[in-house]
C-alpha cells in the first residue's frame, strides 16, 4: 500500500500536466441543455430537437428570419391570386446532403406524409386545410387549400414542415438529412451531436463554420465552469439570469439578451371555483405585481406582458399596463365575488424550469396581501405534464409557452386553461380566415383587448433570450422569433 500511494500521486500529476488541446478556428462548441429525444422534427415537437436540427440541418420552403419576418427560402418565391391556391417556385440547384437535387415531388411527399395520420406528425392539424398538392414541374408546386387559411404560410415555415429526401425518411430519427448549411455527422448518445459544413449549401458564402459540436450539459454550474475553462464557446440556453450577471463581469464573454416568443403565465383553471368567476381572475391580475415577479425570477431581464401576444409578434400591442398592480382593487373585486376574506389555493410548479418556482414565491407573497393564501406545490415535470397539462387537475400553475402564434390555445376550451369564450373563439376563427393584413391586425387587437378583459390567465413576463458566447464570435440571432439556433452566419472575427 505504501508503495502504491506515491505512484498514484505521480500518475495524477502526469495526467494533469499534459497540455490541453488548443481551440481550432472555424470550429464551434455549443452547449445544449437537453439531449434531444430523436432528431426527426416530423415526429417530435421537442425544442431540444429543433434547437439543433432546424435551420442547421433541415429547412423549409419558407423561413422565419431573425427579425421574425417570413422570407422565401427553398422556394425562391411564392404566388397566390385568391388566397386559396399557393404556388411555390423552388430555388434551382438546391441539393440534399446525400447529393440528390431537391425537386417539387419531394415537397409534395413531405407534406402528404405530414398530413397522413399514420405518420404521427405532432402538428398534423396544421395541414388540415390543405386539399391537394399539385406538382407542375420539377421546380413548381401548388397547394390547393380547402378554405382560406391565414396561418398557411406560417405553417409552411414550421419546424415540422421541413423538406427531406424520401429515401432518408427511415433514418431521420437518428441521422437527419436535409438541405441545411450543415450536414449531420454523428450523435454520441449522452455526450454530443456533431455537424459539419455543407460545401454545396445553396446560399453562397454560408455557412462560415466548418465544424459544430453540440455538447449536452444540463447542470448550470457545470455550464458556467465549462465556459470559463474554455471547453465550450457558447451557451445558447440553460443559463439563468444570475449566471448571466456573473459572466457579464468577465471580459472574455459577451452576453446576448433578446426577445423570445416564450410567454410565462400564471394559468388558472377557469372551469373550477373560484376561477370560473371573471372578477376573481381580474383580482388575481390586479393583485400581482408583475415587475416584482420579473425582478425576483429574472433579475429584471425580460419584459412584462399584458396578453399572450408577445413583443415579437407583428400584431403585438403593449397591454402590460392595461391592468396595473392595484391590491385595493383586487380586494374589492374579491369581496364582490363573495370572497371578502380571500381563499386558499394551490399553485403547482415544476422545478424543471427554475423561473416557475421563483415566480411562484413572489406571487404567493403578493397575493397574501389581498387575502389569497397560496400553497406552493413543487411537482416533477413528468407529473406536471400528466396532471396539470393533460388532465387540468390544478388550481394555479406557472409555465412558459414558447410557441409563436399560440393564442389559438385560448380558442380551445379543452386546453388546460379551460377558458371557454364563444366571443374569443369566433374572433380567432375569423382571424384564421382573414388574409388582409389590416383586417387581421384589427382582429388581433380585439382579441388582445378581450384577453385583458376576461383575464383567463395572468400573463407575467416574456422570458428573455439569454445566451453567453466567447468574445470574437459574431452572427448569432439576438431575438428568437422561432425555436431554432441558426448557426449559418456565426463566425469567429478575423482578428482572433
Amino acid at each position, binding site marked *: 500500500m505504501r508503495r502504491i500511494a506515491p505512484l498514484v500521486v505521480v500518475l495524477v500529476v502526469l495526467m*494533469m500536466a499534459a497540455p490541453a488541446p488548443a481551440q481550432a478556428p472555424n470550429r464551434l462548441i455549443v452547449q445544449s441543455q437537453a*439531449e434531444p*429525444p430523436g432528431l426527426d422534427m416530423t415526429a417530435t*415537437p421537442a425544442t431540444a430537437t429543433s434547437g439543433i436540427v432546424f435551420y442547421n440541418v433541415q429547412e423549409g420552403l419558407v423561413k422565419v428570419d431573425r427579425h421574425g419576418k417570413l422570407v422565401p427560402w427553398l422556394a425562391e418565391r411564392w404566388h397566390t391570386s385568391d388566397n386559396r391556391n399557393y404556388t411555390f417556385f423552388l430555388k434551382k440547384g438546391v441539393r440534399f446532403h446525400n447529393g440528390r437535387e431537391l425537386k417539387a415531388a419531394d415537397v409534395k411527399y413531405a407534406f402528404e406524409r405530414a398530413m397522413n395520420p399514420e405518420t*404521427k406528425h405532432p402538428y398534423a392539424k396544421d395541414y388540415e386545410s390543405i386539399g391537394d398538392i399539385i406538382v407542375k414541374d420539377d421546380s413548381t408546386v401548388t397547394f390547393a387549400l380547402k378554405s382560406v387559411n391565414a396561418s398557411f404560410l406560417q405553417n409552411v415555415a414550421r419546424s415540422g414542415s421541413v423538406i427531406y429526401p424520401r429515401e432518408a425518411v427511415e433514418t431521420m430519427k437518428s441521422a437527419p438529412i436535409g438541405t441545411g448549411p450543415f450536414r449531420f455527422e454523428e450523435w454520441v448518445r449522452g455526450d454530443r451531436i456533431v455537424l459539419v459544413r455543407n460545401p454545396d449549401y445553396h446560399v453562397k458564402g454560408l455557412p462560415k463554420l466548418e465544424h459544430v459540436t453540440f455538447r449536452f450539459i444540463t447542470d448550470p454550474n457545470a455550464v458556467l*465552469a*465549462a465556459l470559463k*475553462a474554455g471547453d465550450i464557446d457558447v451557451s445558447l440556453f440553460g443559463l439563468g439570469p444570475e449566471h448571466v450577471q456573473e459572466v457579464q463581469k468577465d471580459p472574455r464573454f459577451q452576453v446576448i439578451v433578446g426577445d423570445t416568443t416564450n410567454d410565462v403565465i400564471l394559468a388558472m383553471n377557469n372551469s373550477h371555483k373560484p376561477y370560473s368567476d371573471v372578477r376573481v381572475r381580474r383580482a388575481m391580475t390586479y393583485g400581482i405585481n408583475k415587475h416584482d415577479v420579473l425582478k425576483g425570477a429574472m433579475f429584471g431581464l425580460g419584459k412584462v406582458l399584458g396578453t399572450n401576444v408577445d413583443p415579437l409578434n407583428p400584431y403585438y400591442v403593449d397591454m402590460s399596463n392595461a391592468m396595473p398592480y392595484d391590491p385595493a382593487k383586487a380586494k374589492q373585486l374579491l369581496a364582490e365575488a363573495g370572497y371578502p376574506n380571500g381563499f386558499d389555493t394551490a399553485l403547482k410548479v415544476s422545478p424543471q424550469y427554475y423561473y416557475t418556482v421563483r415566480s411562484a414565491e413572489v406571487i404567493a407573497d403578493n397575493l397574501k396581501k389581498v387575502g389569497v393564501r397560496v400553497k406552493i406545490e413543487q411537482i416533477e415535470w413528468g407529473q406536471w*405534464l400528466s396532471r396539470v*397539462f393533460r388532465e387540468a387537475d390544478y388550481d394555479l400553475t406557472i409555465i412558459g409557452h414558447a410557441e409563436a402564434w399560440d393564442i389559438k390555445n385560448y380558442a380551445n376550451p379543452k386546453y388546460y386553461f379551460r377558458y371557454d369564450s364563444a366571443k374569443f373563439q369566433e374572433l380567432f376563427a375569423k382571424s384564421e380566415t382573414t388574409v388582409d393584413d389590416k383586417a387581421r391586425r384589427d382582429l388581433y387587437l380585439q382579441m388582445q383587448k378581450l384577453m385583458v378583459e376576461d383575464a383567463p390567465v395572468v400573463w407575467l413576463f416574456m422570458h428573455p433570450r439569454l445566451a453567453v458566447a466567447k468574445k470574437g464570435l459574431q452572427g448569432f440571432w439576438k431575438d428568437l422569433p422561432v425555436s431554432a439556433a441558426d448557426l449559418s452566419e456565426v463566425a469567429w472575427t478575423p482578428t482572433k
Partner: protein
Amino acid sequence: MRRYVARRVAALVATLFVVSALVFVVVRVLPGDPAAIIMGTEGSREALERLRHSMGLDRPLTVQYVEWMGGALRGDLGRSLQYDLPVGTLIASRLTVTVPLALMAALFMVAAAIPLGLYAATHHRRAGDYVTMVLSQIGISIPQFWAGLLLILVFSVSLGWVRSGGFDGWSSGAGAALRSLLLPAIALGLFQAAVLVRATRSAVLDVLGEDYVRTARAKGVSERRVLTRHTLRNALIPIVTVAGVQLGQLLAGAIVLESVFALPGLGRLALGAISARDLPVVQGVALFIASTIVVINFAVDLAYSVLDPRIRYE
C-alpha cells in the same frame, strides 16, 4: 463450497426477479407518461394517443411485464424510447465510461484510505490520529457534487490543467480519456475514502490489541512486519466488507458526478431516462446495477475464505 456457491447463485436469481418486478411496478406507478413528456406542451391529444400506441403503452401492465421479462431472460432488455436503440447496447456503451470511472475511484479510495487508516491506528490518540479523523470527517461531510465543482474550479477554470467535463471516447486515445475521468474519479473516490479510513482505523485498532500482536512484538518481529503481516491481514475482513458496500455506492455516486462533469456514463443515462420516463432504460439500468451489487456482495463473501483460510462455507 460448491453447494454454498449454488445456493448463493439461486438466491441471486431470486433477488433479481424481485428487483425486476419492483422496478417495473415502481416506474409505472410514478405519475408521468413517457409519451406526454416527449410531446411536452405541444401536439394534440390525438397525436399523444398515437404516440402512446406506437410505444406500446396502451397495453395491459401484465402483458408488458411478461414481454419485458421474457426478453430480459433472452438477454434483450428492450428498446430505448428516447434513443430508439437496444437498451443493452446503450448500457454497454455507457459502461466504457462508468466502469473505468468507478475503478479509478476505487483505486483512489484504497490508495488513500488504507495507508491513512493504518497511520491513524498506529498513532492512536496522538496528533496524527486526530488530524486524520478530522480530515475524514470533512471528507464525509462534503457533498460529492460540491467536491466535483470545487475540483473543476481549481484544476480546470483556474489552472487549466484538465477540461471541465465531457468525454471524447476511447477512440481519441487512452491518455485523453483517462484525463477526462480524473477529476470525477477523485471527487468520487475521496468521499468513499473518508468512510474507509474510519473502518480501517477501527479494524486495525481492534487487531493491534490482540494477544498475537503482542506476542509477535515480543518475539522481536519488526514493527513494519507486525503491521503488514499480522495486523493488516487480520483486519482486512471488516475492511473488505465496507469496501464492498462502497463499490456499490460508487455506482450511485457516479449518477451525480457524471452530471456535474457531463460524462456519458451509466448514471447520466439513468438520470436522463428517469426524467424522460424512458421506462425500458430505467428498468434495464436498475436491473443491471442491482445485479452488479449482488455480484459484488457475492465476491466479497468468497473473498473472506481467501483472506482467512479458517473460514469454510458448508
